């Protein structure tokens, strides 16, 4: 009881001087936060987006977080020409949610793929499906793409 009173007193005394506070808040350094979030897996990133407004806006708006997620299992990193294409077709977050995640889980389920290691073929196939998705959205004026419905149930991206 006394202890609690002390610390809240301390906080009341120095609210505007973070440098004097012994604790370090991760939210103070967005770059470090970004580096950490980059290394999370999909579900964890989803959970992270619910922590606070800063984390939520980062995960929602920073596409590079999702880029790492998309290709973390690839044996060799994709060539640099991939990025502008993915961005033009809808971004890494959409690529992950609509293509990579369901493809990974389907391939992981099947007997033929023991480990969850992406092959070149899987990457190419995902990108092709993503491109078809982007095209269908153009055709139908941004309604939910039906071509990838066979991959997963409709989700809110």
């Amino acid at each position, binding site marked *: 009881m006394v202890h609690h009173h002390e610390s809240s007193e301390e906080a009341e005394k120095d609210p505007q001087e973070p440098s004097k506070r012994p604790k370090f808040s991760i939210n103070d350094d967005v770059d470090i936060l970004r580096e950490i979030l980059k290394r999370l897996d999909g579900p964890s990133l989803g959970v992270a987006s619910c922590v606070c407004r800063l984390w939520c806006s980062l995960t929602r708006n920073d596409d590079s977080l999702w880029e790492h997620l998309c290709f973390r299992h690839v044996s060799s990193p994709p*060539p640099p*020409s*991939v990025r*502008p*294409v993915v961005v*033009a*077709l809808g971004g890494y977050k959409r690529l992950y949610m609509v293509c990579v995640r*369901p*493809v990974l889980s*389907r*391939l992981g*389920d*099947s007997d*033929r*793929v023991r480990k969850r290691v992406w092959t070149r*073929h*899987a990457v*190419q*196939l995902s*990108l*092709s*499906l*993503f*491109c*078809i998705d*982007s*095209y*269908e959205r*153009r*055709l139908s004026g941004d309604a939910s793409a*039906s*071509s990838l*419905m*066979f*991959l997963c149930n409709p989700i809110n991206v």
Partner: protein
Amino acid sequence: MGSYEQPSAGGGASSNGSSSSSGTRPAEMDGLLAGAGYKVKAAELHQVARRIERLENVMVNSAADISHLASDTVHYDPADIGSWVDTLLTELNQTVSLPCDLLELPDLPTCPLLDETTTLDNRWVVGQNDQSHHSLTPQQQQFQQLTVVTSMEENSGIRLVHMLMTCADSLQRGELALAGSLIEDMQGLLAHVNTSCGIGKVAGYFIDALSRRIFAAGTIGTGSSSSYCTGSPSEDEVLYHHYYEACPYLKFAHFTANQAILEAFNGHDCVHVIDFNLMHGLQWPALIQALALRPGGPPLLRLTGIGPPSPDGRDTLREIGLKLAELARSVNVRFAFRGVAASRLEDVKPWMLQVSPKEAVAVNSIMQLHRLLGSDPTREPAIQSVLTWIRSLNPKIMTVVEQEANHNQPRFLDRFTEALYYYSTMFDSLEACSLQPDKALAEIYIQKEICNVVCCEGSARLERHEPLAKWRDRLTEAGFRALHLGSNAFKQASMLLTLFSVEGYCVEENEGCLTLGWHSRPLIAASAWQAAPEYEVA
């Protein structure tokens, strides 16, 4: 007669839901026959009598030895005497020979049928040498009731197939009256069968197609009976799109063809793709993306899309071209589109395509070449002239995807049999992919194909599918040489199927061509061709 359990009029105690065979309205059973253990609706008496007459005729006139009937007939449900007589009739009537695997109808669902069968109480087996009926102990009856549920449905399904074959046979012989009465019988039988899946559904479509053919008999080859088979271009595009979504056949076609085209375009900076049926252009985004990412950078891509003219003044071809151009621009691929509007592929002339000699040309035909096989005896078949001008363009590659079926045989009955088997398999595969809104429209797409194969003749019959072996011969004769599709295409196709996560599809390699099928029956075949050098042409 031995003792037997008397079926009560409203259905036995053990068949709870089986109050009547037709569901809601109570069946009025003929009282006299009911006393003998046979359940025949009063309304059906004349049909049963007709069939017994036919049976008598056949038995009397049959040259075959029918004494086996007395010794080893298995009778599944004597209450339904109409169907029993039918089965006997078709067994004795040997004019129609079925391929034996038609009887193993794929994947008949084990739908609970207790509310659709007349009664399950009586299960009779005609024993060795007597014509009377033995009774079974209650335990035996109980056991057999469990096994009889699915065999009743299979029985009805098999009966439907038999009747379809008989109807087609009578159509071929010109006996329209008999065919018409068979149609009525079949429609009656359909009420007893589950038409939302399995053989019931396919049979429904075929019965519909046959009745169109019979009752519009004077108009075959002209507008009216074929007008159902071909809708307006925009309707066809919508149905095609849903067929694309609902099952993997078109996706397999597109991905396999694209892979072959991509490999053929290796090292070329100016490439030109000619698409024989543009539709919504769903094949091309993936190729544009693959070209954008190819090592060395994308080439200049020209796409010429052929399609039917739009009736309402819109230029659908141009609209699709614009969307594709937008996509290409967003991924930095230099792109040019040209649309060629033609209602028939044979109306297209090579000068319309404006092929430049410096570019690498790919010709892409997804289920289009078979439409050129209509044989007008006064002229050279259209397929010859089209293949000749394709070859004159000297394409780097021609990708051909066709249905793997033999629906262009001269005899109607052969075509009908083949189509029944083929489309049953296809509907089965569709059932396993259950994307609801797409599935219904995809079924309409397939139904139109069925209608064209069954109802139409002459120039109206466009769906003249031929198997891969025939196409190989035809294309080789026309001066083409096969290109092997390669392991990349195979791996991609297998992976695509894994994503569909439906057990039952299989990709097979067939001498350099790939086929996609359902449970070891290939349904669609993809192959790649190149113009053979002159000295190889015999």
